[in-house]
């Protein structure tokens, strides 16, 4: 089943650029649905990137992060073929994880 995480990690020289797009509603809990009831808050709280056994980037997110959230960053110390592990957990205890090869 397709993971909810789309990631593109490309290494040039010692710097690896990482882009991630995650399929998630990121509901704020402040919005009403068509029947006028509040849609409960449902948003990713923590997104973690690990490479070679080390955290390379940790995101703590609030309700102001867009639906289908996107993030881009770069880090040093990895090379083509290394594994990049990505995992997120949301406020309802949901989570997903995937591993991508650095291109």
């Amino acid at each position, binding site marked *: 089943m*397709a993971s909810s995480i789309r990631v593109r990690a490309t290494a040039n020289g010692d710097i690896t650029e990482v*882009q*991630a*797009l995650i399929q998630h509603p990121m509901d704020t809990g402040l919005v009403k649905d068509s029947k006028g009831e509040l849609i409960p808050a449902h948003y990713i709280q923590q997104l973690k990137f690990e490479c070679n056994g080390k955290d390379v980037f940790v995101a703590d997110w609030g309700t102001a992060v867009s639906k*289908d959230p*996107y993030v*881009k960053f770069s880090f040093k110390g990895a090379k083509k073929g290394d594994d990049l592990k990505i995992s997120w957990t949301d406020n309802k205890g949901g989570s997903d994880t995937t591993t991508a090869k650095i291109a």
Partner: protein
Amino acid sequence: MKARIHLLLGSLSAALVAFVLTSPRVIAADKVDPVADAKAFQNFFFQKFPNVKHEDFVNGPYSMNEDMKRQWQEKEEFPPYEFALDAGKEMFATPFKNGKTYADCFPNGGIGIRQNYPYFDEKEGKVVTLELALNRCREANGEVPYSYVKDEMASLTAYMAYTSRGKLMDIKIPDDPRALAAFENGKRYFYTRRGQMNFSCASCHVQSPGERIRAEILAPALGILNAMPIYRSEWSGMGTTSRRFVTCNSQTRAVPLEPQADEYRDVEYFLSYVANGLPISGPGARP
């Protein structure tokens, strides 16, 4: 209640007067000549926006405003329609209950053919759009048709558009009076004012592309369907051509027709034909 009505009528007639004054000077012509119409249509935009590259018109509002174009290019690095695209690819690969797939319904397996849609079906005597052909394929294979305005249809057309990216729009009008009538009917719909706002498609997309309606920059009509289907941030979801037509109608306070009504099929035929020669850029991301 009474004051509100007069206010409403005042704004209506003011909008009317404003738009009639600014309409370009035209001479009546009754013979339907799509080739001439397309040339005039394209030249109108090429002259109105001389420094916009011709193929850039298909990028809608982003061809009109640098700041918006920058925001768009940033989004295109990892576009929000990725999920619809993957879903469409998966749906194309998943056979129906009877074992057939979409590839069996379309020439070249449905790959790289979006630029020929919509086409005029001489057996039916009507315009057939990509969305209609997809649902007919589903029905022919015993499947329930998809809603024209929901994500499943958008995923399918997103994938088919993606396989045609860069190919030039290539709509044909056969030498058949019914095809010419459909083209003319589409043109008439495009220029006809409707809704309490009394706007036609042209009021926004011919007379004021590049200008703002509140936060949004209006797209030029030339190539406006080349990026379909589009992921709109405003809907925070995918939008098919049908969804765009229906919401545009309700924006002008006109009650929309049912999706894939003849008028919508014909106006899609008209708008696609006059964009012949411009590249397909779908699926697109829009405000």
